[in-house]
């Protein structure tokens, strides 16, 4: 599984922490905003592109609150992105919504919690089944 990670300036420290943490666990993590100073709009747009183009299977985007990036990413057709601050949401949104991008707020979640959210997100698989009608509906929109 290929994981993309990205951030604006506010999320830079947490991004680097999570990239190192996930790599230590053996995941293939590429930085979609390395050596760039993007605002949250441009960083979230980059992440949406990486997922749309199937350059990564999952993506994690960090700004100060997470919520701005999720609004941006969800404006792109075919993108289902969740701003999460807990492990249970991270798992359930993959299982039920087929979410491929999560956003995190560096001002909201601490390092340990962020690590566990990312692990739960990456380990989860989409359940399919009855959930597919909702995913089809969302993907017809915008």
């Amino acid at each position: 599984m290929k994981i993309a990670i990205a951030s604006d300036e506010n999320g830079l420290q947490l991004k680097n922490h999570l990239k190192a943490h996930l790599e230590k666990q053996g995941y293939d993590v590429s930085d979609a905003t390395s050596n760039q100073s993007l605002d949250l709009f441009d960083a979230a747009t980059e992440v949406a592109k990486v997922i749309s183009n199937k350059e990564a299977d999952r993506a994690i985007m960090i700004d100060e609150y997470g919520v701005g990036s999720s609004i941006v990413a969800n404006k792109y057709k075919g993108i289902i992105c969740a701003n999460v601050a807990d492990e249970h949401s991270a798992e359930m949104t993959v299982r039920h919504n087929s979410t491929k991008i999560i956003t995190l707020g560096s001002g909201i979640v601490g390092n340990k919690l962020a690590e566990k959210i990312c692990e739960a997100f990456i380990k989860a698989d989409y359940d399919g089944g009855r959930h597919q009608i909702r995913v089809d509906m969302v993907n017809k929109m915008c």
Partner: protein
Amino acid sequence: MKISIGCDHIVTDLKNHLVDYLTDKGHEVIDNGTYDNERTHYPIYGKKTAEKVSSGEADLGIVVCGTGVGISVSANKVKGIRAALVRDIETARYAKKQLNANVLAMGGRITGAGVIEETIDTFLETKYEETEESKKLIEKIESIPMNEELIGDEQYFDEFIEKWNNGGYPAN
């Protein structure tokens, strides 16, 4: 204020509680359903709730489902909507103040009713404070091309519902 509200069948009780909570505070509430616990599909209610806000019929929207994700993503895919999915009061405050978010989303299986109530209070009370940065960000969001055909189209999801009714999706 005039508040448009919607939910899926997992959290109908919570939505009904919030309708009462908002009405008791003097707000006018448009309840877009769902109205019972029969299995249905969150995009229907995310879209309906959001359209009342984008048209100006309601001032703000509130959407809830299990995690808040499905219904907030659906609301956010309506042009003009900035739907903030939050788990804490401060993120809701920020989303209103700096992003002028017009729909608030929370997960009824994630967050307790006390936090949800105070988050709604904070979201309604907080004023958008326009800055050069926030203005530019909102303009960038508005510039993303959006499909406007879906707005007000109550048959928009019919193809999927027909397939569902004909057993085209697994029931599990």
